[in-house]
């Protein structure tokens, strides 16, 4: 018991439920509608919360926008106990206009769960973390394969998992089992390397003249991150967190910790640098810069000061156990591609350079999700489901983002309509797209009625689809909805 207590790291996790939860494992499935497209906006909006927490303890680690963590032991001693610390932090964040939950426990994993327990979070006394964890279902581990397998073997709670001998868990379930066993027993996921390596693994770049724009700094961050990863890999290490330090020409130094876990690509590190710079600049221009004269620490905005130095410091080294490339699958963009994309993003804005991700759906516009370059996204509607009623191949080569207004008339000039029994009033004879001249319809097919989401009135849709070929050889996907004709796509 004593050895466990000595090894445990007391962690305070602050969670703001207003930010969407990407893994959705807090039970509110409705809120996981994040398509990842606004990572920067979310990070920027979270910056004030981080600044408030930073006044209690400067080493704030951002797990993701909406959740941050600090080591609790030191500040708890200063502020008069852990309960007092949690209360003060939560109060300060609430005064800043945010709702939050604060949890304290041994280790980051348990503290994260403690923050989710109860309306304002929970304080788990030192040494009682295994008992606290014992009641949770194994589903909270966020290890999809194990979470499916363990209940089938009769291991349904973390307590049951913790009762297994650790070596057995690791040999039966592989590295994931070892990790799960450590988490269930209230330990850190991977043992830290106790002695810091002799070599300094941090990387830095100076800017002379100072960089006024974020763009060159983000470029440099990509190259620095590559360099840092190379150095780490050469030593066989991965880092749990990466610290981004920025020095300004007026002598201030700003730093943030980002969760890394050896999983971030160089591009993802550069993204976090961009979020961070955006956040600081946004806050300074937002008029909250009255603490800007405070030297050092994380409580000051960047303002318009030029940046003289960017430093990336790998924090908390662990043994590298292999890296997974979840964001891009096999298609990792080369440096040249990433650089060109980031440069265009710097010209046009983050959301103007997008990656197409195929999604499911019935209309062609629903079948492609556009994700800003650098963000991760999982389509809400997976493409590999049947989607009965979708238009079969070949797909149209032009899909209008917002459908074009059109008029479809029969031989006598009357608009073509469709009855409730999907009967066409008369064969379509003329098509006029977007107010253009009427073109004769030489072939047509339909109507294909679509009734979607009738259980959800705001999103319910009743449509009849047609394919129309006009005299000039072009083919259109037309839809009749609420008595109006729209062109969704054009073939060929």
């Amino acid at each position: 018991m004593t050895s466990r207590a000595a090894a445990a790291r007391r962690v305070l996790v602050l969670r703001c439920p207003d930010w969407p939860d990407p893994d959705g494992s807090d039970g509110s499935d409705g809120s996981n509608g994040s398509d990842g497209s606004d990572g920067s906006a979310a990070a920027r909006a979270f910056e004030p919360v981080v600044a408030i927490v930073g006044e209690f303890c400067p080493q704030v680690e951002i797990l993701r926008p909406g959740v941050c963590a600090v080591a609790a032991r030191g500040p708890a001693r200063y502020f008069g106990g852990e309960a007092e610390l949690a209360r003060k932090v939560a109060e300060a964040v609430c005064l800043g206009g945010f709702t939050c939950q604060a949890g304290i426990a041994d280790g980051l994993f348990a503290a994260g769960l403690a923050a989710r327990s109860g309306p304002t979070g929970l304080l788990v006394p030192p040494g009682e973390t295994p008992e606290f964890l014992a009641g949770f279902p194994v589903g909270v581990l966020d290890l999809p394969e194990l979470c499916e397998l363990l209940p089938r073997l009769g291991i349904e709670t973390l307590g049951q998992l913790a009762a297994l001998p650790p070596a057995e868990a690791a040999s039966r379930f592989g590295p994931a089992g070892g990790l799960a066993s450590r988490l269930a027993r209230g330990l850190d996921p991977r043992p830290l390397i106790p002695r810091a390596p002799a070599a300094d693994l941090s990387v830095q770049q100076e800017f002379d003249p100072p960089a006024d724009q974020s763009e060159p700094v983000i470029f440099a961050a990509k190259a620095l991150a590559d360099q840092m990863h190379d150095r780490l890999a050469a030593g066989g290490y991965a880092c749990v967190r990466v610290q981004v330090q920025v020095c300004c020409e007026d002598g201030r130094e700003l730093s943030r910790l980002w969760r890394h876990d050896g999983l971030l690509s160089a591009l993802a590190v550069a993204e976090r640098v961009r979020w961070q710079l955006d956040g600081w600049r946004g806050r300074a221009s937002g008029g909250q810069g009255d603490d800007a004269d405070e030297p050092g620490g994380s409580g000051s905005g960047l303002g318009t000061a030029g940046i003289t130095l960017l430093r990336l410091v790998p924090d908390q080294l662990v043994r590298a156990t292999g890296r997974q490339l979840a964001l891009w699958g096999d298609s990792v963009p080369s440096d040249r591609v990433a650089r060109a994309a980031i440069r265009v993003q710097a010209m046009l804005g983050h959301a103007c350079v997008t990656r197409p991700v195929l999604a499911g759906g019935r209309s062609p516009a629903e079948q492609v999700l556009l994700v800003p370059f650098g963000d991760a996204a999982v389509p809400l509607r997976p493409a590999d489901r049947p989607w009965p009623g979708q238009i079969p191949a070949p797909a149209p080569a032009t899909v209008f983002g917002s459908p074009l207004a059109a008029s479809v008339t029969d031989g006598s000039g009357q608009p073509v309509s469709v009855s409730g029994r999907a009967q066409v009033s008369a064969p379509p004879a003329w098509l006029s797209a977007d107010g253009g001249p009427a073109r004769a319809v030489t072939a047509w097919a339909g109507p294909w009625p679509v009734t979607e989401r009738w259980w959800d009135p705001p999103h319910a849709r009743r449509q009849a689809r047609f394919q129309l070929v006009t005299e000039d050889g072009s083919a259109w996907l037309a839809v009749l909805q609420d008595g109006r004709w729209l062109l969704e796509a054009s073939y060929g």
Partner: protein
Amino acid sequence: MGTGVAQVISLAPARHRDDVLTGEGLLPVLPALRALLPGGGLQRGSVVTSGDWGLLALALAAEAVADGAWCAIAGVPAAGMRAAAEAGMDPDRVLLVAEPGPGWPQVVASLLDGFDIVLLRPPEQPPPQLRRKLEAAARRYGSVLVVAGEWPGAQSRLLVTEAEWTGIGAGHGRLRARRARVAASGRGAGERPRSAWLWLPGPDGTVTAAGEAASGMYSGESAPLASSG
């Protein structure tokens, strides 16, 4: 064992972007398009036009992207990425810049620096000086600029001259395939106009060669299209 290793090696990306910066070499195109392009592929550093925006522009880039090249599509907010995927273009290696804005030449020049192929629909007809700048950028970076629209200095011009849909009738069937005649003309000595019939697209969305007299092949259960055209 030995063959297994050989297979693994041949399945690896054929080349890396940085290996081919000299502007030499060809990017592969779909077999059906080979006869239409000088050298049977997209010459790095060249400009190719494809008429108005359509499947032909996507088809030109499809094989190279499948081969590991990266493609950017600029100025086409309505690009049908499912059609592109059906034609063989892996969406994982495609980036879209839907609205390049008033500074589009600078955006396109930046894209040419990083991407092997840039599909561009210019928001406006660029003046000759600007065209030459972008042509120079393509040459310098060894990329291919595929323009949906007019581009007087293009090395190759492809154009759909005739097209006929099959599978759809007067109130029955559905669009199954389009048989299209693509004419190619080029710049330079010895370039004779060429043309070929293609399924653009075929019934599964792929782009393949169509015979001279294959009309009705994909008409399915319904009567051939009565396209008076």
